[in-house]
Structures are given as C-alpha cells and as structure tokens.
C-alpha cells in the first residue's frame, strides 16, 4: 500500500509543476510572434528570431516549418502572425485569406538561386538552356539519356534528383521551367532533405539535380554547377549574378507575409521592423543573398503605410 501513496505523491508533484505560472511582462514589448511556413526561409527566420529574442526577452518568437502551403493555411486561418514563403501567395490561398478577412502585406526578404548541378566527373555538360531543362523535366518527356538532350553527349541514362513535391522549391522550379507549378516528370529521386540530393548527385556520374544555391555553395568541392541560358547567354549562379538578377530565371525572391491585424500589436511591429533593419546583415550569414538597401526601404515604407509609427 505504501509504495502506491509514494507514486501518487510523485505524480501529484509533477502535476503541480506542470501547472506552474507564466512569466510576467517587462519594459520591452511582450507577447507572442508566431511564424510558420517554408523550410527554405527557416534559416533566415531563425537568425532574425535569435537576435530579436536577445534584445526582446519578453516576446516569445516561434518559427515552424510546415512548408509554404501549410504556412499560408495557418496564416489565413489567423493562427499565426507571419508566414514564410519561398514563392508568392497563390490565387487560391489569397482567396482563403480574403474570405477569412485576413489582410496582409508581402515583403521580399532575400534572394535564393536555384542551382542545377551535375557530378564533377561529368566533363561534357557546362551549360543548359531553359528549353533543354524543360525537355528534361516536363511530364511525358522522351529524354532518357544525355544524348537525348544534345546529340553530342553520351548515351548514358540521366538520373534525376530533385526536392519533394511538398516543397516551395519544387513549386518554383516547375513553374519557371515547365510553365505550371507542380507539373513535373514523376520518375526522379525526390527528397525533402537537400543534403540527400547533394549526396545523390555527388555519388552518381550521370546524375542531374536541382536545389537551393546554399546547398551547392557548401558542397562546391563535390558538385559541378551548370550555367543556365535563359535567352541572354550562359550565366553561372554566383553571389553577383543572383543579386543583380542576371541569373534568370532561376534566381527567386523569398518572402514573408505579415498580417495587418497583427501589425497593430507592438511586438509584431517591433519584430517586422527588426527583420527589415537587420536583414542585410543577417541574410548573408544564412547562405542566402540580401536584397539592396532600397528594396528593404520599400518594405519599410509598405509597413508604414499599413500602420504609421514604430521605429
């Protein structure tokens, strides 16, 4: 009998601990800033949240990774204040926000370059045109070997690697290359983890893959990046060509969407101000490319039009 009361005591203590009180507010703004969405944008959100949290200990910032689509669902349901997105909001998602009465402002926060990579042992391919990429990746394609892309290339099977269908990277690539978001040939190695794709291409002589530029930059020794010809000659992705927009069409802006209702709250306003002020400093440390100071200034102006005041 005795050990039972002892176990009950353990449970009771734990329960009291579990129901303990919450922090009280302080001088700096208090409250919650809930962010969710693209895992591509996550490193940027994490960097900003980390720094913001240091100077605003009473604001509780959380960053989720539900994916761009999942983030917009929660955003338009009013469950979060800020949505991270690796593509602009879709018409259907905008409709959902409208019918729920959620007004918002779109802010571009960084550039990301999609890199097309092959194995370093691949000596023949150095540049692909957008039309060639489309022939490789379109649904119902007849391209099976490298020779099907260009007659001078070897008759070896192209093995394809790309992000899974839930990612914004997949949406963006298929929209730019195949003309419609989400439309792709289905027979490629898909992974939500870009490091798996890096390993796949690095270990497969006749592979071709695509993923965010940061994953190429970190693994440049194991991969060979292809230049892309979007109509104005072959351009290789680099810090310069991504930031000046010449790496078209595979350089893309990354966005955050801020709810207007939430912007009226001081903690959300403080966070967004901090984001726009510190982005040019913080974004490069995450492997992405910062926008120009003018572009962040335009973001600040857009926010000031919604809710005047703030810093």
């Amino acid at each position, binding site marked *: *009998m*005795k*050990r039972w009361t002892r*176990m009950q005591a353990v*449970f009771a203590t*734990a*329960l009291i601990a*579990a*129901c*303990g*009180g*919450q*922090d009280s507010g302080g001088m700096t703004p208090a409250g*919650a800033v*809930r962010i*969710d969405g693209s*895992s591509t944008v*996550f*490193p940027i*959100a*994490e*960097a900003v*949240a*980390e720094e913001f*949290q240091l100077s605003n200990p009473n604001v*509780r*910032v*959380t*960053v*989720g*990774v*539900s994916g761009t689509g999942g983030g917009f669902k929660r955003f338009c349901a009013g*469950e979060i204040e800020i949505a991270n997105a690796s593509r602009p909001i879709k018409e259907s998602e905008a409709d959902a926000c409208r019918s729920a009465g959620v007004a918002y402002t779109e802010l571009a926060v960084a550039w990301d370059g999609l890199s097309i990579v092959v194995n370093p042992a691949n000596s023949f391919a150095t540049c692909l045109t957008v039309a060639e990429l489309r022939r490789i990746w379109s649904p119902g394609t007849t391209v099976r070997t490298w020779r099907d892309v260009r007659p001078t290339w070897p008759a070896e099977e192209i093995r394809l690697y790309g992000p899974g269908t839930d990612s914004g990277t997949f949406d963006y690539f298929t929209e730019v290359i195949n003309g419609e978001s989400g439309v792709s040939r289905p027979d490629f190695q898909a992974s*939500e*983890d*870009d*490091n798996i794709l890096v390993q796949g291409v690095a270990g497969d002589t006749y592979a071709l893959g695509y993923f*965010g530029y*940061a*994953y190429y*930059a*970190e*693994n440049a020794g194991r991969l060979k990046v292809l230049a892309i010809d979007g109509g104005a000659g072959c351009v290789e992705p680099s810090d310069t060509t991504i930031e000046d927009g010449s790496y078209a069409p595979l350089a893309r802006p990354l966005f955050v969407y801020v709810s207007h209702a939430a912007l009226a709250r001081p903690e959300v306003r403080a966070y967004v101000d901090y984001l726009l002020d510190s982005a040019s400093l913080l974004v490069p*440390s*995450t*492997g992405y490319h910062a926008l120009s100071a003018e572009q962040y200034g335009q973001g600040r102006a857009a926010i000031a039009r919604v809710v005047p005041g703030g810093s």
Partner: protein
Amino acid sequence: MRPGRAPLGASPSAFDRARRTKGRIFAFTCAAAAFVGVASLGALLVDVIADGASRLDLAFLTGFASRFPERSGIRAALAGSVWLLVLTALISFPLSVAAAIHLEEYAPRNWVTRAIQTNIANLAGVPSIVYGILGLALFVRGLRLERSVLSGALTLSLLVMPVIIMSAQEAIRAVPSTIREAAYGLGATRWQVVRGQVLPMAMPGILTGTILALSRAVGETAPLIMVGAVGFLAFTPQSVMDPFTVLPLQIYSWISRPQEEFQPLAAAGIIVLLALLLTMNAFAIVLRNRARSGG
C-alpha cells in the same frame, strides 16, 4: 523407452549426437539473432559518439538553437521532450491501467467488450501521423488548446494508450486466479482484491509496457509537427499551454542544414535523446524492482 535413446551407461548413439548438435546450432542461431540488435545499437553508439561527443558539453545542454553552430544548443528541445514525456505519462498511465482493469476484472464477457478489445488492438497498429491529424482536429482546433505542450501530450497519449492497455491486460491476466479466489474467500470485496492483490502483482509488467510505449513516444516527430511542434524557439515551456519543440525535430533540423558544421550537433542531439531514453528505462527498472520486492 523412446526410439533412438541410448540405454543407460552405453556410449551415445549417432542419433543422440546429431540431436545434440541440432540443439547447439539452434542455441547459436538464437544467440546470433539476439546479437544483431545489440550490434546495431553498438554501431550507432560508436558512430554518434565519434561525431558528437566533442560538441556535448554544458553549454550545449543549456543553450538555445542558433544559426551559429558553435553557439547552438538543445535546451528548448530537451525541455520540450521532458515536458511532453511527463505529461504523456501522467495522462496515459492512469487511463490505460483503469481501462485494463475494467476489461479484465469488471467487464462482462459480451460483444461490447469484444468490440472494444478488437478496436484497441487495431488502434495499436494505426500510423502515428493519423493520430497527429486527429490531434490537430480534436485538441488544437476542436477543444481550442492551441499548439501547446498539452495538445502534444494528449495526442501522444492517444498514440501510446492502446499499447499500454494491452500490456497491462497481459500483466493482469498473468496474476493466478487462485490469488483472487483466496482473497474473495477471506471476504475481500472486488475493489480490495484489485487494489490489494492484482495490481501489486501486475505492476512490474504494467510498468514494462508503459516504458516501452513512452520510449516510442519520445522518438515521434510526425504527429507532433501536425499538432504544432515548432522548428525554432528560444524559451522553454512554462505552462502546459506554451509552444514547444522536441528532440527529434531539432535533430532533423540540424541534419538538413547545408553547412557541414551542424552535423556534429545532430550527433550530439542523438546522444542526448539516447541518454533521455536510458534514464527513463533506468527509472522504470527502479520502480519495477520496488514493486516486485514489495509485491
């Protein structure tokens, strides 16, 4: 005398030798099978300790996640996992044991009981993501518990309860009916029999089942992402209504980074997760031994 058996005192026959050889082969096969599990655990341990031990220090345990790998720590995820584990145990253990007692000691043997029994067995095999979707609809949105530790713990409780109920039933069934009959014979009521005889005897088995189920829960990610475990936060939960993250999610977040320097962090996170599991198991063994010696 069975055919082939050597008469007493005679030298063993060829049949007898073959019989013994078969026995040895069987014993060796079983030992080898047991070794497979230990060997893979050993390989995993050696691998993660080699990768992560250098990053495992007090700063790692007390620091929050950071974009700088050398500054990054696991505090929020560890706290979230412990909170979730304790709450899940508090919710699922009493409910499951009560359900098992009802089914074994009280429920009449009719089709309703059989239907419940079949459903519990089926629920134990449902993929965990389904519980996540249920948790999102029921706890997060239906009961408006938000994306909180409580929603996560309730969802995990649903996930582990079928397993705990079934192992508790097994343990209760293993209590000899002569014990119950003796207690009834002395005039004990049904409640006194259950509380004084059946539960103490079944407790070691119930605890073993509980700990196995909770060990599974602590490694879950998919249902918790559905009910709102987040990728980054720099505070620990202060109440059951606070947001949270968990160890497996933090480990995955590090593994999927482009920067090589985050990989040792993931390994160190795995060591922390294993340590948490082993601590839980040790705690259960202490409880079980205590229940046994007192039973």
